[in-house]
């Protein structure tokens, strides 16, 4: 099934930008992350592909800055999708390469024409790049 045009264009734009971006659909399923995001998430998108929400919540766990785990319902993306608002916060992420990184992220809910909720885009960056 074809994705909504807004998500197609968002993915196209993300593929050209030099800042890390991840795109999810309205259920929180991971649809795409760009090349700059690969360095933080620890694996190429071509290797991971799309992931169901439950799956990538497990494989890319998030932690508070003090190291305590963030439960799925409090992950910034799911809060943004549920409450349809922008969410900005600092977290730690365990990458697919096993490394833990401190990141700052902004999640933008993507609303389409007619008030359709399409998903979200996470823009994030590493706070202590080595």
């Amino acid at each position, binding site marked *: *099934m*074809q*994705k*909504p*045009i*807004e998500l*197609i*264009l968002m*993915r*196209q*734009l993300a*593929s*050209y930008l030099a800042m890390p971006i991840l795109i999810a659909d309205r259920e929180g399923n991971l649809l795409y992350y760009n090349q700059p995001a690969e360095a933080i998430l620890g694996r190429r998108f071509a290797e991971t592909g799309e992931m169901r929400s439950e799956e990538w919540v497990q494989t890319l766990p998030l932690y508070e800055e003090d190291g305590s785990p963030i439960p799925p319902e409090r992950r910034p993306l799911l809060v943004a999708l549920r409450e349809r608002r922008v969410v900005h916060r600092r977290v730690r992420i365990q990458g697919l390469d096993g490394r833990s990184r401190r990141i700052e992220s902004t999640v933008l809910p993507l609303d*389409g*024409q*007619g008030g*359709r909720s399409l998903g979200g885009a996470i823009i994030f960056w590493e706070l202590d790049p080595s």
Partner: protein
Amino acid sequence: MRVTLWGTRGSLPSAGPETLRYGGNTSCVEVRGEDGTLLVLDAGTGIRRLGATVGEIPAVDVLLTHLHMDHLQGLGFFAPLYRPKVQVHIWGPPSTTMDLQARLVRYLSPPLFPVRLRELPCDLVLLDVPLGRFTIGALEVAAALVSHPGPTVGYRISDGRVAMAYLPDHEPALGARHFPEEPKWTSGYDLAAGVDLLIHDVQYADAEYPQYVGWGHSAIGHALAFAALAGARRLMTFHHNPTHSDDDLDRLIETARRGEPPFELIPGREGMTIAL
């Protein structure tokens, strides 16, 4: 289902000796269902001649893909608008900022046009196109937003036996690193998948496209690749560039045919009818 082209030109009406065979009127396509249902796709300047042929009809549905002038300029000259007993439904893409009436009156009011919408004697109903499926008479219509600047929809129309898709202004290759991409990441795919007839934007020669990336249109190579990806049975060229003469279009299409596309390639000429 019967499909007649009343205007195949893009961007600007282009009358002249060099456009006689493909035609100079802008986008307008008539779709007739077997029960007589009449759909009009876009209201470019071609709609004037269509209006002169429809005869006594109780109702007509005009489905606009978007509100650029080449898709709207003929609306005020559509004869059924001036008949008191005709129900005219005009469908347009939804906008987050203004309703369809507010957008239409920008053109259909003085000083750009002498008659106001509210002065039209027909029974006029303006409707936002649902982004999904709906039924008009015996025809099922599906609408979806497609890649073109501003809110723009494409249409898929089916009578349960055959289906056609109408994507007159469409740039599915925009930003794609390797066009065509997978179907799920290709604008317009669901509308065009497996149709018996795809009417598609062919605004540019392949060599022209790089100068116009982001303008919302396709090169012929993109249209061919999109039709092949979608598995269309026929591709009809449409929205021809006003600077392309009949001879230019002949050459474009002849070159494309030499590539032996896996579908019938039909030059979209004003006045032609195809029965599906």
